[in-house]
Structures are given as C-alpha cells and as structure tokens.
C-alpha cells in the first residue's frame, strides 16, 4: 500500500537477512567439507550479523497498513531472539546428540527460520500477522524437537509439540475469528476503536470478550503459563538440549512479545478483563511451577517447571501497566534468556559426558568440572534472584512494577514462591558443591560450548553488577508505535529520571 522498496528494505532488513541466512547455511553445509562444521558457524555468523543489523537500523515505521511494525520494542526483542539464536547455534556446533545423523544443514536452516518467525512476532501489528508468524516460528520447531532421531523420547517431544501447538493455534484462530466478527477488524490500531464504541467506557460485547480470552489462551501455551503448561516438561526433556534452550527462551520471549503488543495497543480498552485473567494465570504459574519442580529428578524437567514459574513472575509485570511493567518485562526477558539458556547448556554438557540428565549426575561436579559447576551456580542463583546477579534486579523490578499497581498479593506470592524455587536450585547446587563425585574423570566438552556458557555467565554477572545500561535499554524500548488516542503519550520513550 504505497510503500516503496527502499522503505520496505529499510524496515525489514533484519528479517530479510535471516531469510537469506537460512539459504546461506544450506549452501555452506552443502559445499564445504563436513568436518569444518560450516553450517553451524555460518548460522552463528548469520545471527550475530542479524543482531548488529537490529542495532544499526534506526528507522521506525509501519508497513502495509500497520500489519507489520518496526519500532524500538520490536528492535530490542528481535535482537534478543537473535542473540539467543547465536548462542544456541554455538552450543549446537559440538552437540554430539545428533551430529552423526547427517542432516546438520536442515537443523541450522530450520533454527534460523524458526527464529525468523519469532522475531516477526514482536513486529506483528494485526491478529493475522500474529497468527502467521507464530506458525512460522513453531512449525520449524516440530522438526527440530524430533531431531534426535534415534531417541524415541525426541519423537515423542516432536509429536507432543505438534499436537499442543496445533490445538493452541486452533484456539487462537477461533478467538481471532470471534474478535473479527465482533469488531470487523484484525488490526491492533483499529481494535481500540471497536472496543470503545463511543461510550468512553470499557464496554465489550460478549463475543469480543470470548474472542479475547481465546486469543490469550492460545498465547498462554506459548509463554508456558499454567494451566497451559502440561506439554512443557515432556517436550523440553525429549528435544535435543539446544532446542530445549531455544524453546524455553526464544519461544517464550516471542510469546510475551506478541502478547504485550496485542494487550497494550489492541486490547487496552478491555484492560480490566485481561488483567483479572492474567493475575490468575500468574499466581497459578508461580505456585504450580515451583511446587511441581520440587518433585523433579531430571535436570531438564526441573528447568522446564522452573520456566513455568518464571512465566508467572513475568506476568506480574505484564499486568502492571505501561510505566514500570513493560520495561520490567523486557528487562527480565533479557536476563532470563541468558540464565536459562546457560542452564540448559550446562545440562547439555552433562548429558554429553555422563549420558544422563538426572540431577544426581551432577554430584561432585565441582571436582570434575569446576568452571561448569560455577557457571551453573551463577545461572541458578540468577534465576532464583540472589544478588549481585542479574536475576535479583529482574525480580526486583517485576515486584516493583507489581507493587506500583497495587498487586501486593501477587508480589507476596511471588516472593514466597521464590523461596521455594531457591530450595530446588540450592539442592542442585548442593549436588555440585557438597556431594562427593561418583567418579573422578574430568568433563570434556568442545570449546564452542564453553564459549556459549561463558557468554551467558558473563552477561548474567555484568547485568547484575552494572544493571543501569540494560535497564535503560529496556525502558527505552517500551516505546510502541501506537495510535494517538492511547492514554499514555506515545511521543516519548519513558523518561529515566525521577
């Protein structure tokens, strides 16, 4: 609709680059000898360059009548997903789990395509773009989850992911059709007009409310909020570990990215309704995720349930309005990505060396791989919110945002369940640092995996010790391209001065 090619390229450059990158990887894997792992390294390069492109492209704008939006918010989340992508590829280069099966090219290409879908999610400006980009991101993951072809659990994971995703997509799509039926539009921009039919109040028809709830339900699968979390543990456990890392961070980031833009731009007229629903989801996720995690003996399942709980913490900020809530969510997504991906990478090193993913296999890790044990401690404590690591600031800002809107009960639940979370995090730490090892052989893993873990450790520590620039970045990214009738002035990013 009137956009010229230069503008289109300007606004979609990172996404176009990913698309090209997927082909590049296939090409590289095809012509360069296998032993050089060309596909993996090319994919890492594609993601790194993509991240740089995000920071480099400063143009803001919308395309095609607003179904695609490129603004500070999309830029930060796109960069975040790409950073995760780079780390996951880096850890995959050495991943022995599926190296022998022979189709590495497709693995990296699919990973990039999935990342493409997830990055586009944060730019989705209409319910239809939301749906399509969600599918792009998820469909590739079916194949990736089943990539450990010799392991039946990997197949199980793929199938479960397929069924759950199809179900949630169906729910989402049905909700979209109801919303369209009620208001005659799928564009976020126009939804507020439909939601506020001249009355000035928050009046929504029954059809609209039902549609909205179904859309939220569909997205709740993506962000793994309880009670939509039942697939999480099986899928994270069965999928190749780098893919579990990707699912638990990039996929969740994208889910939140899509949900936040929809809620803030599209559905702010119905805020009372969705706040009630999300408060319930948040409380349930924190309680259920943390309690079920207590009973896990597999490290990957433990991390899966802990990530359900983390979704609950994030939702505290989602319901806490624009001023503090949005920035807090972005900040937490950023630091959560490094800590959680890092923890999965440690699980990968563990599986590569002991063939087991049980928490008990971590016994005496301090003696067998001191660096790895230290890294895991950093990740767990960050997830648990212990200073001076990044997670402390993240949790603080989440709770802060919650308290600013008067959600004291939710904050209290969050604070108390964090103590439960620390119990199982510390039980892992105890295995690594206090228990004696079962055997003495030191761990061996490729340099690329250590680099990926080291980056996660450094980021977790750096954000923790010097949170300010990262907070500023997050709060500067709360600027959403929005119609002028939004209650908050959309002209200025949130000012950081008191």
């Amino acid at each position, binding site marked *: 609709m009137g956009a010229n090619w230069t503008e289109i390229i300007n606004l979609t450059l990172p996404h176009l680059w990913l698309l090209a990158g997927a082909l590049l990887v296939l090409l590289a894997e095809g012509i360069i000898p296998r032993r050089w792992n060309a596909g993996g390294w090319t994919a890492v390069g594609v993601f790194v360059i993509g991240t740089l492109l995000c920071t480099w492209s400063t143009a803001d704008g919308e395309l095609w009548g607003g179904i695609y939006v490129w603004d500070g918010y999309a830029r930060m989340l796109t960069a975040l997903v790409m950073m995760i992508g780079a780390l996951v590829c880096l850890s995959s280069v050495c991943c022995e789990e599926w190296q022998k099966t022979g189709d590495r090219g497709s693995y990296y290409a699919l990973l990039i395509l999935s990342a493409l879908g997830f990055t586009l999610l944060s730019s989705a400006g209409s319910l239809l773009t939301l749906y399509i980009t969600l599918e792009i991101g998820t469909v590739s993951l079916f194949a990736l989850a089943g990539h450990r072809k010799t392991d039946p659990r990997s197949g199980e994971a793929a199938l479960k992911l397929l069924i759950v995703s199809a179900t949630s997509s169906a729910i989402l799509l049905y909700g979209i059709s109801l919303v369209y039926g009620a208001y005659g539009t799928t564009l976020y921009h126009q939804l507020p007009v439909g939601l506020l039919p001249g009355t000035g109040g928050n009046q929504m028809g029954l059809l609209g409310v039902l549609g909205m709830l179904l859309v939220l339900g569909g997205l709740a699968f993506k962000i793994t909020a309880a009670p939509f979390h039942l697939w999480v543990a099986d899928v994270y456990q069965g999928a190749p570990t780098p893919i579990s890392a990707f699912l638990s961070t990039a996929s969740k980031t994208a889910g939140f990215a899509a949900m936040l833009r929809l809620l803030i731009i599209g559905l702010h007229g119905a805020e009372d309704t969705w706040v009630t629903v999300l408060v319930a989801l948040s409380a349930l996720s924190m309680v259920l995720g943390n309690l079920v995690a207590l009973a896990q003996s597999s490290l990957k399942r433990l991390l899966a349930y802990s990530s359900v709980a983390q979704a609950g913490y994030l939702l505290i900020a989602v319901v806490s309005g624009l001023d503090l809530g949005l920035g807090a969510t972005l900040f937490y997504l950023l630091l959560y990505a490094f800590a959680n991906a890092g923890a999965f990478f440690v699980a990968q090193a563990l599986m590569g060396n002991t063939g087991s993913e049980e928490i008990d296999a971590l016994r005496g890790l301090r003696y067998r791989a001191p660096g790895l044990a230290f890294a895991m401690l950093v990740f767990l*404590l960050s997830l648990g919110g*212990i*200073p*001076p690591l990044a997670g*402390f600031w993240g949790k*603080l800002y989440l*709770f*802060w945002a919650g*308290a*600013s809107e008067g959600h*004291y009960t939710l*904050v*209290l639940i969050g*604070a*108390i369940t*964090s*103590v439960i979370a*620390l*119990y199982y995090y*510390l*039980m892992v*730490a*105890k295995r690594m*640092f*206090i228990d004696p090892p079962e055997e003495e052989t030191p761990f061996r893993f490729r340099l690329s995996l250590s680099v990926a873990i080291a980056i996660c450790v450094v980021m977790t520590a750096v954000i923790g010790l010097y*949170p*300010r620039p990262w*907070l500023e970045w997050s*709060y500067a990214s709360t600027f959403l391209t929005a119609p002028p009738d939004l209650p908050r002035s959309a002209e200025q990013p949130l000012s*950081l*001065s*008191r």
Partner: protein
Amino acid sequence: MDWITKHALSLTILVPFVTCLLILLVPPERKTVVRVMAAVASGITLLISLWLCLNFDVAKGGIQFEERLEWLPMTGVSYHLGVDGVSITLVLLTAFIIFTGVFASWTIEHRTKDFLALLLFLVTGVFGVFVSVDLFFFFLFYEIAVLPMYLLIGIWGTGRKEYAAMKLTLYLLLGSAFILVGMLAVYFLSPTKTFDIPELLATAKFTTEQQRILFLLFYVGFGILAGIWPLHTWSPDGHASAPTAVSMLHAGVLMKLGAFGVLRVGMSLLPEGAQYWAPLMGTIAVINIIYGAFSAMGQTDLKYVIAYSSVSHMGVVMLGLAGMNAISLTGSTMQMFAHGIMTGLFFALVGLVYEKSHTRDILKMGGFAEKMPGIAVAFVIGGLSSFGLPGTGGFVAEFLTFWGVWQTYPWMTYIGVAGVVITATYVLRVVQKVFFGKRPEGYDDLPDARTTEWVALVVLGAVIILTGVMPRLLTDFLNVGVHDYLRLLGKV
C-alpha cells in the same frame, strides 16, 4: 587520610570484600598466608570500628559519618551509609566477632582458602546491613549474606549439616520475602518514592491501617531472623551444625540484625503499627524466653544448649523492644551487644571443647576444668553473663530490660524473669557436668587452649567484664540512639 575519615563506613564493607577477592588469588596450599590475610583484614575493620566509636559525637546524636551517592536515579535508590547510636554498637560487635572468629577458625584445614573467602564475603554483607540507611541497600546486603551462609554450613558444618543449611537459608529467605514486600509498599506509599530511611522518616505519613499491616510484615520478616517463636526452629539446627566462626557470626550478629530491623524499619517508620502490635510482640518474646530456656535445659548436645539459649536471649531483646520506653529500649539494645559477645564466646568455646575432646555430648564429659582451666574460666564468665550476674554485660542488659518492661507490661516481667532462673539452672548444670565432677576414661591428655585459640577467649571475655563493670562505655551511645527512636515513637 582525609579520604579515609570520610569513607570510614565504606571501608568496613570494602576491606573484607577486597580481601576476599585477594584471597581468591592465593594458591590453595598457602594456608597460613590466607589465614594471616583474613586476620589482618578483620583486625583493620576492628580498628575502624573502634575509631568510629571514639569519633562518634555523643552530644549530637542522630545519624553520623554519612556518605551518600546517587545510584539508580530512576528508582530513588542511593548508596547512603550512616550509623546512629544503636547501629554503631552493632558495627563494633560485628568487628569483635569476626576478628575473634577468624582466629577461632585457625585450625580449619579442609579448603581453608574457600572457607575464609566465603567468611569474609559474609561479613561484607553483615557490615553493609548495619551501616546502610537506605532500605534498598539494607535489603541488598542482607541478601548478599545469605548464600555464603548456605555453603559455609553445608560444606564445613557438622552433624545434619545439609538439612540445617537448607533450613536456615530458606527460613531467612522467607523472612526476606516479607521484608521485600513491605519495603516496596513503603516505597510506593511514601510521597517522595524513596528508600532513604531519613527521608522516609521526615516525609512519609502512613495511615493507621497501612501501619498495622506493614508493621506486621516487617515484624514477621525480621522476626524470623531474630528467632521469634514459633519461627525459630532454623536457629538451633543451623547454629548447632555450622562451623564455629559461622555460629559465632550468625548467632552473635545476624540475629541482632532481625531485632535491629524491627527497631529501625518497623518501629521508627510505623510507630502506630508498633504500638498496636506491641502486646503481641511482648507475648511472643516472653514465650521465647521461657520456651528457649526450657529447650536448652533438655539438650544433651553442648552446641544445642547454646543455640537454644540464643533463642531465649533473643526473647529478652524483643521483649525490651515491646516495652517501648527509654529504659527497656536501652536494655534491649544493650542485650543485643551483650548477647552477641557472650554467644560468640560460647560458640568459640564449644568449638574448642569439641575439637579437643571430639564429643559434644554433655553426658560423656566431666572434669575438663582440670585439663583445660583457661577454657573453663572463659566458659564460666560467659555463663555468668548468660544468667545476668552483676559485673557482666548481661546483668546490665537484662536488668534494664525487665525494669523498663515493668513500667509498660508488668506481667511480662513477672514471667520473663523466671527465664533467668531457668537459664541459671541449665548454665550451671552444663558447667558442672562438663568442667567439674569426675573425668571419664580416655580424656587424660586434653590440652588447654593454645596460641591463636586464646584470642577469642581473652578478647570476648574481657569485653563481657568491661561492659559489665563500665556499662557507660555502651550506654552513652545507646542512650542517644534510643532517644532518637523514642522521639519517632512519640514517647519523648
């Protein structure tokens, strides 16, 4: 030199922290080097604390040695340090305990370097808590102190150490969860959106209802740390399992932090809430005194006796707070110091006895005084202070507390004083059973304390007697501090 005098409080945090980092650079087999480094660092903090006490202007009162640095401007968090008449005594207490604690840990051979590095890291947090007058930093330093504790108990502890370490850590974090929520509520309800305690005191006005809810949050949160019944169970397990220096630091200093938090955050910010809940606080404190004393009487493990006695003595501290008048508050804050020193001495002694006799079971001991007269004398000094015999710091503290509380809630004094009698019973029983009477077989070559082991005994024993004979050394500081708090409570 000018820089040092201006940043003396920062130095109490920085010296242990930097030493902790330096220790990490020393090769693990150079154990003596590490020990000397830790001793020097804790010695420096002790000197700084003494210097602070000498230069504290008693006539002026209020918060002194202030340092302020804007930190996260958006949030109203500032790195704001300062000490008042009460917290300066607690800084001094911390310095005494860590200085003697390092010497009490001299004989640790297993991963010496890691132990001392973690211990210094822990102390960094403890000092930070006492010198912060910004609620946020107060909380941050408190959280920093939690994790090293888990590892210190879990790795170097004795008995059911993993269980105890986990229990202690989780209880303390549960307490901090309540504190965090209360802290955020205070922040958002305050007109200027700040964590700065002096600013909050000057500007914040909370409604009666808010005060009642918030005070309860802080009381439970800090109370867990102070070992209030029935949330005290982490304390005996934790303190009995921890290595000597950690028990000393935790029972001696960190439990005081809970009581101090109730005073500084709860009572001074929320006076109406404090008045409202004072009867509850007092009642629970009395239960603490009696219940802790009876539990101590029933123990056969020497370390558990001391650990339960801490629960009982913390009851005296909390009772004094509930009394809310000049005398009871002075008594309560004095008890914080006196009990800190006393329990530090006790844990050091128990550590020594265990190290030499390899048992903590009271029933298997006897007649040790003959072989270890120095340890026996120190134990008796601690014991006398424990049940408040005149001439010891404990006497002054308990006498003032009970006298003060008499004026507010006489019945609490009637029952509370009975705790002193029970304390006398179990302390004398332990002294008699362990150090006197007939020595069982197999303890013929028990050595007395040696070289570095004397440090804790002599220093802490001397402090007990000094504060008992010349209580003004402390009460001069406490009076100004307490006066400030009473003004906030509307009692002056």
